[in-house]
């Protein structure tokens, strides 16, 4: 018998999994894309738009200071199926949009999914995105091309991103997960979010009450999330046992300090799942204190994405 996955490759994967990463992916030190959320026009809770239906892709970008100021360009094409690697486009893009200069507004791309005939049998569409902090990315008639897209300032490398969107073609569909029923805790106390506007008025030194405040002493704190079962949808029957519900992937990022890891896996066999992540406060901040942002992104592995943000103050 020849092997499907060689034992050696299996060991190599384990070695890869056990190694310390070169750069901590969970720490935001420059402008980054953290996620893309797809909403169908007629039902924003549905992650799979139907042919000829409108849809919106909202992008989550972050930098150490909050929402970055970026220019962007998007294009939409039908997906050429691939089993691994980057999603490819089949033919020319159906739609494209670009920003007018840069803005801190969350980038979003509204489009209409091509009708069944135009899709030509494709079951997914692909959105390609480019973001530049120096202006609107250069754009060609072929849409965002990963090899040639450039920022106005040549020294500013574009952030390139893509998301593949499955289409609603059969009875089965997929809903966007939500954080509405997820409870957050910080060192055992409830941890609520604040709006972007409220964030602007936070004064860490003045004794902020709405968000946790911790000293910059290198102490480790516990972050906790309780995720209810309803967030995980049933999956079509599988040949293998144990694959009848979605396993959620929770990503967590922070703009300062040391987060234990970037990802958590959430299997919702029990009524709710608890996710615990340790975070170590920085040992030094400016005299004015520092507002740190934590981003939590939930993915259902089938195109459904949601995110939430929590903040805290670190004071000297």
């Amino acid at each position, binding site marked *: 018998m*020849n092997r499907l996955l060689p*034992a050696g490759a299996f*060991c190599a994967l384990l070695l*890869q999994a056990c190694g310390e*990463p070169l750069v901590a992916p969970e720490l935001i030190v420059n402008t980054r894309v953290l996620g893309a959320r797809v909403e169908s026009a007629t039902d924003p809770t549905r992650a799979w738009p139907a042919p000829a239906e409108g849809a919106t892709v909202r992008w989550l970008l972050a930098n150490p200071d909050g929402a970055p100021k970026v220019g962007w360009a998007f294009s939409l094409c039908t997906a050429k199926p691939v089993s*691994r690697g980057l999603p490819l486009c089949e033919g020319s893009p159906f739609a494209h949009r670009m920003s007018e200069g840069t803005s801190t507004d969350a980038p979003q791309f509204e489009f209409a999914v091509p009708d069944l005939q135009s899709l030509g049998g494709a079951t997914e569409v692909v959105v390609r995105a480019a973001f530049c902090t120096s202006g609107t990315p250069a754009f060609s008639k072929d849409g965002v091309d990963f090899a040639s897209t450039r920022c106005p300032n040549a020294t500013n490398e574009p952030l390139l991103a*893509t998301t593949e969107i499955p289409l609603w073609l059969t009875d089965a569909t997929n809903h966007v997960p939500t954080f509405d029923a997820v409870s957050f805790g910080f060192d055992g106390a409830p941890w609520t979010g604040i709006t972007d506007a409220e964030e602007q008025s936070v004064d860490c030194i003045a004794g902020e009450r709405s968000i946790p405040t911790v000293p910059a002493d290198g102490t480790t704190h516990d972050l906790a999330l309780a995720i209810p079962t309803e967030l995980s949808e049933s999956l079509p029957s599988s040949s293998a046992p144990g694959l009848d519900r979605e*396993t959620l*992937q929770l990503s967590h990022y922070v703009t300062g300090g040391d987060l234990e*890891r970037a990802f958590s896996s959430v299997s919702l066999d029990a009524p709710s799942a608890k996710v615990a992540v340790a975070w170590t406060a920085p040992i030094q901040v400016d005299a004015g204190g520092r507002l740190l942002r934590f981003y939590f992104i939930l993915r259902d592995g089938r195109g459904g994405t949601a995110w939430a943000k929590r903040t805290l103050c670190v004071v000297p």
Partner: protein
Amino acid sequence: MRRLGTWHGALVVSALHVTAFSPAFAEQPKPTEAPEAPEVPEAQGVASENDSPDVTFEDDSYTAEAQITAPPREVTRRTIEQQDLTQIPGTSGDALRAIEVMPGVGRTSITSGDPLLRGAAWNESRSYIAGATVPLLYHLGGVKSAFNSRLLSRVDLYPGNYGASFGRAVGGVVSASVRDPQRDGVHAVAEASVLDSMALFEAPVGQDAAIAFAARRSNLGLFYDAFAPKSTFSVLAVPSYYDYQGLGWFRLSSRHQLRTLVYGSHDAIGLSFANPSDFDPALRDKVDYAIAYNRVQLALESEFTPHVTQRVQVTYGNTQWHQVLGGARSKLSEHDLLSRGEWNIRTSEGLKWNIGYDLELLSYSGYYVGSRPPQAEGEVMNGGMSTETVVDAGNLKRIVAVRPGAYVELDWRPISRLLVVPGVRVDYYSDQGACTVDPRLSTRYELSDRVTLKWGIGVYSQNPLYYELLRGIGNPKLAPYHAQQYSAGLEHGITERLSWGLEGFYKHLYGRVVSTPGGQAPYFVNDGTGQIYGAELFARYAGQRLRAWLAYTLSRSKRQDRNDAWRLFESDQTHILAATANYDLGRGWQVGGRFRLTSGNPYTPVTAAVYDANVDVYQPVNAAPFSARNPTFHQLDVRVEKTWNLAPFKVAVFADFQNVYNAKNYQGFDYSYDYKKRQPIAGLSFLPNLGLRGEL
């Protein structure tokens, strides 16, 4: 004075090894005090066609038995003899890894032991134990071979242009022969090393039967806790392996011998990750892998007349394999029935017919949910599992493949110095409804008593891997693919102890199984070609105390997938140098060293990366496949063994040091999450394997 047997003209130039023992000694009760070991006469040498093994002993009480190695019919057959099988430095005493000292054998990675012969991929060469293929050649991806090396009599390596008795491989063949249990008394061996512990027992049963049993278990569990990063994962099952072998030899009559062989192996590893990997969140939850197989074989060897012999064997085996890797799950159950038979008929002094069959009957069932399998060789896999599409191949109902093969090969000696071996092999593949006809020809011409010229040409065919044929993840309409192989060279025995040889080879592969663009239906097609060419230099010294080998291979192996540009074979190694020596210092001391130097394997550089919002990882943008090369690999291994002869016991301690000067031997890169930074990954560091052995 006693004369040994009759020498048949079939043997032309062959190694002769004669061991004699006293039946009286074998039948003695076990002494309470260790007596002096009897002096056992021994003869060894080279016999030629007209020679008789005229070995004589002064004491009539001795009987003797000659083990005669058949002369090569192939262009290239390289043999590792029993006395060297467990003594090659750097192999931890492993016989199958010992082939690495031979030319034409590429360096395998630290996680794979499948032999890479003359630029062929891991799946293009076949390995046999006692004439049957095995589901798993090495434990844990290459740590040690799954069959006890002390039960092997020899390992033959055919890097190319092998004869018609083997088939279904476009590369080469490694054939390990199992020895018979010793019949001169009770023997036992117990050995413990860092890697594993094993015990072996063998004994005669009357005059006409003998048995042997061996078992081995890994010791990794004893040390694992000390090294495992507990914060990263918890251990469900410590990486472990065990294997067992049982041999039986029965003389049914003076002309018929029956051999039984029972063997099996089990490998397992089980981990539970506390959290997903920071690099690849698909590596999460439970990671579980196990493979176990059991085999039983019956082999009948008969000599009907001095000119007609027969060997027939039947092997039944079952294999259970399962794998859980995050959301990827698969389970496979396999039942095999393998049978081979060969009849050797000498019709005249210069002509012998070798007629045989080679049957494989395979049955699979199970399920597979996981990434779409890549092509066996040459798929660029820089990204993580998260970026791979998960497919559900469904429940694999019982799938049966019947592959009968038959061959005819002549040993034709039109003149005394010329041996011509034409042959043809026909194979049928029921799972593909295909038939292949492979003509082969090899020729050896003795230019003088010490110089032989040789050349060969042949067609070789191979069936696709079983999963490449599965509906849902593969293409049931795939056809076997082929190679034309050409080689020519010379062998020169400078003295009886010192010999060397030089060979050139060329292989053309066509109809290779490659994946479709994007890995879409029909997933795999016969649309790949390949070219492999090179030269091999081999020198060997076999003295009383010193045994040494020098092997150098210069080669280039390249492939073309579909209409893409030609690329290097993923394990192409331009230079492969291996120098090995073992020296008997006397007083029970033996030292050995092996130095290897090979070109680094090709790899595919990453030029950029794109964030994939679906899975929250970056996907690499790759440069041309296998367009860069890792640094040169070099490594020195040393083995030291001291044996105390405390008759009837022997006690030995040994130390096998791999990579004694701790060469880094970088074998790829570890990337940051966004592929903007990278650092080289070092190969196996200095690794000592210390052990203790007791023998009776």
